[in-house]
């Protein structure tokens, strides 16, 4: 684990002091990505490739001719699961490690805002996940072409679902960062995992809110429904396995919802992190 070098963030003595905030954020993001690569986070791709290869070779005998569907289900589910683990376990350590190793002092002694630091960290992990998801998506497409002994339309039609998986991981990364801005890594990981689970039960929360008699309980569940991310909106793995492509309007609104949600989470995380006293 290599700490962020403060000189890299603010530039050398020759760099103008008013280097833009975006430049600083990009530097932190690149460094976070490099850290993840050095921490061998991308090694999970090897396991993924082994799973897909095994599925492509053996599933045909077990599935009664349904290997294409199963490869998509298995590939995209593994992509989501691996991504969730990376988002949670790497995400909760993003801020904590810098505090633990006291490198955060060196960073904040330079003209780097706490919001910039958090956003840089967030974007760096998002970049790691993007590489991860893109390579896995390509792996699933290649496995489909192999199983079909030639071009398979599913190799192309799965990509909107892959994109929605990535958006889901972006939300979870934000949630992990939010919890890690005020809590310990273990608790943050647990809470983020709960959000992942509840995020897929959102429809039940709404149903519960509508079916309860008491006004307070109704309000409570309605508040939970709107305040927690509705990850079911981004779940399109099963239809993708049947060659279905989500409507462009649905994808656009789902992405917009997610981006707004991410902005809210990062703003809250910055607010909490700004109040932390490192002395």
């Amino acid at each position, binding site marked *: 684990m290599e700490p962020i070098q403060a000189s890299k963030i603010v530039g050398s003595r020759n760099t103008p002091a008013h280097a833009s905030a975006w430049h600083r954020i990009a530097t932190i993001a690149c460094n976070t990505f490099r850290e993840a690569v050095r921490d061998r986070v991308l090694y999970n791709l090897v396991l993924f490739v082994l799973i897909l290869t095994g599925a492509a070779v053996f599933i045909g005998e*077990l*599935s*009664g*001719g*349904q290997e294409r*569907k*199963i490869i*998509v*289900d*298995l590939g995209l*589910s593994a992509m*989501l*699961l691996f991504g969730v683990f990376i988002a949670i376990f790497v995400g909760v350590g993003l801020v904590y490690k810098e505090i633990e190793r006291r490198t955060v002092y060196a960073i904040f002694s330079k003209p780097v805002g706490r919001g910039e630091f958090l956003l840089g960290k967030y974007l760096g992990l998002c970049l790691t996940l993007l590489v991860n998801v893109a390579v896995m998506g390509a792996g699933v497409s290649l496995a489909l072409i192999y199983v079909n002994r030639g071009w398979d339309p599913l190799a192309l039609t799965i990509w909107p679902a892959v994109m929605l998986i990535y958006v889901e991981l972006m939300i979870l990364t934000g949630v992990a960062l939010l919890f890690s801005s005020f809590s310990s890594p273990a608790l943050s990981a647990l809470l983020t995992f709960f959000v*992942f*689970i509840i995020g*897929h*039960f959102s429809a*039940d929360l709404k149903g519960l809110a509508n079916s309860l008699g008491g006004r307070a309980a109704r309000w409570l569940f309605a508040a939970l429904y709107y305040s927690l991310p509705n*990850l*079911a909106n981004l*779940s399109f*793995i*099963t*239809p993708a*396995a*049947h060659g*279905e492509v989500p409507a462009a309007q649905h994808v656009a609104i789902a992405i917009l919802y997610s981006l707004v949600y991410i902005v809210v989470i990062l703003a809250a995380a910055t607010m909490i992190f700004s109040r932390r006293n490192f002395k």
Partner: protein
Amino acid sequence: MNHRSSIRDGALLLTVLLGLGSVVGLSRWLDSHRRPADSKIEEEQLYLNGTTAKRISLGFNGLAADWYWMRSLQYVGRKIIDVPENIPIDGLGQLNLKLLAPLIDTATTLDPQFMEPYQYAAVVLPDIDLQQAIRITRKGIAANPSAWRLYQHLGFIYWQQKDFRAAGEAYDQGSKLAGAPAWMEAMKARMATEGGSRELAREIYQRMYEQAGDPQVKDMARRRLLQLDSLDQIAGLRKVLLAYQSRAGRCPASWKEIDPVLRALRVDLDSNGAPLDPAGTAYVLVNADCDVEVDRQSEVPRR
């Protein structure tokens, strides 16, 4: 120091290899001495129904459906392996496959668009639990109202039960959907006029053979087509045997005795002069009844 570390590494490697060898040996001993699984436990009802499984699948419902689908194939496969006779998958009622309906039901609830389990339900389940076969197929129609193949499956179930009116209606409803082939429309009229005929059966199995994705279903349709051809052949052979019996006053002792007649009728014969069924296995001459039947080893189903 180097020598010592080499000895240490060698000892560790030996420990790992011996340990692995012991683990394999102990596992094999445990496997060979394990008591046979209690059939009550093996056939225990599923803990989760489809709705609950879908609720807790966290967006992995497609993968969970695949799991239940493969489990149902393995469940049927295990039971078939235990039976010495080569029985087609549409005649598995004797195998007590009581978990098959819940497994297929769960798979189709988890992923209602998953078509293969519906076909499997239509082909395999009627001999085990007819009402479940109809219910699961109707559930599929409700979830996929534009899938004409599900109406084909429903028509097949009713046709097998000799409910030709219901079968005709199912084919008729399916024929009205976009993409349905022209033969679906003709099925309603054919069901009414020739519901129990061999020709209609041939067309139904031919269509099933052409469209089945599942190799087991495809194989079943192929074998049923062989059986239909075989029934035609058996009818012809019985006529030959009857003619010989009325002429000679007895049944032929072997196929050799009626060899010239069979050759004149251009029947395929083996080296012993026995007529071959459509799968290439010789028919058995049953002298006691002066009848002919399919050999037990043949691919052609006997019933």
